[in-house]
């Protein structure tokens, strides 16, 4: 497929890897993203305190925690989006396949191409059609080949489970779609850049339950294609869609492990109290 000229596709064997949910397994096996001693600030307020976390390839990892615990900040540190905010600062390393994305020699634009992002509220470009929305990243980055763009648009919309709903009206404006469709359009837009990692910042918090469940289904299907990290307020959602869960509190990573273990048998009392709704 045409897509392959753009990005080295992740090794397929990793998909076959069985889902072994042991802590050691997280440590030992190859990690897609390694977060090493990351500290983040907003002005003088420290939002992240020495975070260390390893993300497995082709898995879904959920960040949970009460509001203001730093989970969104951590997510935004993973594709260098955090530093775009005024007054924001970050120290530490984030390794993408062993490559430090904060290295001085690295172009942040390339990083954002390899690590896509989906936001809390669906944000399709309002003046663009569905087709142009998906193609925007390619076109504005200088891809000229029309056939290639057409192929990628179709592939991305299929990947976002939106193709069947919009294939006859690709020229309609993106904002004419329903909220859930818009969010899937945004996922397609991110997929079009052939990212290896997809960051999702509370992607269903602005959607109704039905649209949310479609997104959740999509997330679990996308796992074969990209590594997904999702920030969510909805504990049941984290339990449903993720393979691994990280619980954060006051800027610290309290507990990280297989979702099954976190929800059935959390090791830390704080985690237990949070997930069972005794605070937060």
């Amino acid at each position, binding site marked *: 497929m045409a897509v392959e000229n753009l990005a080295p596709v992740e090794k397929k064997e990793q998909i076959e890897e069985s889902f072994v949910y042991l802590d050691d397994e997280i440590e030992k096996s190859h990690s897609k993203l390694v977060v090493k001693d990351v500290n983040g600030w907003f002005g003088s307020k420290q939002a992240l305190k020495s975070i260390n976390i390893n993300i497995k390839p082709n898995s879904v990892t959920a960040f949970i925690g009460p509001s203001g615990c730093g989970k969104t900040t951590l997510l935004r540190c993973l594709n260098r989006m955090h530093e775009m905010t005024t007054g924001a600062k970050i120290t530490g390393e984030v390794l993408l396949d062993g490559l430090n994305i904060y290295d001085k020699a690295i172009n942040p634009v390339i990083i954002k191409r390899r690590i896509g992002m989906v936001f809390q509220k669906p944000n399709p470009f309002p003046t663009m059609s569905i087709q142009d929305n998906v193609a925007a990243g390619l076109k504005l980055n200088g891809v000229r080949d029309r056939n290639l763009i057409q192929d990628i648009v179709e592939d991305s919309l299929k990947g976002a489970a939106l193709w069947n709903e919009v294939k006859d009206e690709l020229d309609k404006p993106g904002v004419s779609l329903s909220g859930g469709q818009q969010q899937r359009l945004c996922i397609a837009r991110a997929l079009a850049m052939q990212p290896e990692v997809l960051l999702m910042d509370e992607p269903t918090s602005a959607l109704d339950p039905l649209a949310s469940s479609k997104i959740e289904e999509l997330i679990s299907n996308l796992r074969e294609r990209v590594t997904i990290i999702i920030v969510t307020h909805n504990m049941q959602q984290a339990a449903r869609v993720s393979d691994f869960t990280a619980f954060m509190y006051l800027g610290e990573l309290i507990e990280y492990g297989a979702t099954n273990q976190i929800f059935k048998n959390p090791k830390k009392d704080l985690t*237990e109290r949070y997930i069972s709704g005794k605070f937060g």
Partner: protein
Amino acid sequence: MTRLLDIGLDKIKNLLVDMSILSETTVNMAIESYEKGIAIRSKIFDHSEKLRLLQLEIADFAIELIARYQPVATDLRFLQSCLDISYGFMRFGRYAYDISEVLETIGPSHKCDTSIVSTMALIVKDMIKLSLDSLRDLDKDISPKLYVMDDSVDSIYRNFLRKTFKLDSEGLSTTITINDMKCYMSTLLILRYLERISDHACYIGDCVHYIVTGDPTPRK
């Protein structure tokens, strides 16, 4: 902070306490009826039926709580264990009824040697008590004690089984009365039921251990 789930959990705890008390009395009644040779089968039957209904109620209720409140962590483990524990109590009642039925069918035991059953009954009563204690206090350390006691119950039962077997093969030479036969039969069956009860007491200890630690200990 009180959660809606807590109201349900409290209620299910109360039901479990009711069950535990009822099952303990039922087993005690059955043992007493054996030792004193009185037949109270119908009363024990009523109790065991009541235990069965309580178990159904707890199961229904636990499923409802899971469906409505999506409990996690300790709450989830507690509800999961509730299903097992209430089944255990129901079995207590069932075996008590089985004991009383043996007495009813084979006849009262006052001409038999009740010492073996009494020894074992003493241990089993203790085990029930201990398992109830561990549930009440959520004490995970009682489980190993229960296993030690279970071992001695098992060995009593096995010894008696062997003895009966020997008796059987040599029995033709010695004179053995019908009464002796009856005694052996009833003692063997009752020991068997008591042994089952002690197993279930161990399982309850396991469940408590699981609620507290989240570690499912492999059952022996």
